[in-house]
């Protein structure tokens, strides 16, 4: 992931106008591969220690935040995806 995004990998939503959309590596198949991994992370680590409640609560909050974030990213990147 970090290899594909390279110097574009950030934790804030940062867009550089006119730079091309990354479509290599996992981005060939998924629009938001990084978030898929974050969803897995938040759920799996607590589950590994049997902390089901922590997994459920933080996964729910995480899904809400990520859904919102993806909507914003899609809106920001829409012009570059083309019609």
């Amino acid at each position, binding site marked *: *992931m970090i290899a594909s995004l390279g110097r574009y990998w*950030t934790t804030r939503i940062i867009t550089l106008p006119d730079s091309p959309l990354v479509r290599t590596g996992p981005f060939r198949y998924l629009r938001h591969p990084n978030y898929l991994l974050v969803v897995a*992370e938040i759920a799996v*680590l607590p589950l590994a220690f049997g902390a089901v409640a922590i997994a459920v609560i*933080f996964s729910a909050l995480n899904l809400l935040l990520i859904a919102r974030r993806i909507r914003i990213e899609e809106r920001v990147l829409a012009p570059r995806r083309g019609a």
Partner: protein
Amino acid sequence: MGWEVADDGLRAIFSRDIPKLVTTQLQDAASEFLARHGLAIDDIDRFICHPGGAKVLTALEHAFRLGQGALVEARAVLRDYGNMSATTVMFVLERILAKARATGAGWERALMNALGPGFTGRLSCTRQPVTALYWTLGLVALQRVIELGHAQSNTARLRRLGALEADAGGYPFYVLLHAGWLTSLVLFVCGGDLPYWPLIGVFAFAAARPDLG
């Protein structure tokens, strides 16, 4: 109580008062001992006791306000080998550790106690050392710090090139979510709990942010 030198070795002399002594004195002695470490009996979640006889075990259960089954390993050692004086507690410790390894059920603080001639009681309070949980969480925290450093230098570079940030107001919530997630694992998972390693493997795979394609 004490020892008698017999032809075939040492023979223990027991006083009938031992169970009564345990009931009346040990609780105070243990509370005083734990107070020196800033702890109380309620802070202890595992008792590793020298089984100085069936009645002594019952007295220990009263002294430490233990439920049934709390001293099951001590009873098993007493049944299998008898009372071998204070060192019997090491056999109990061995069984408790073996069980913890097999089941993954750990504990945070344990109180070990043994009784000997005199009449003396010895107590030792142990805390779980840095366990799999703390190693894992420490590595996760380190990974996050490295990622944040990497992200921050990318962000600074992109901003210099004229990049714009969307939803700057929402960003603190992501930080809060990840910090809260890690903190709740530190607070609510028992330090001695062993993880289910295949899931740790899945987590490590995700955390490495692989280029899936």
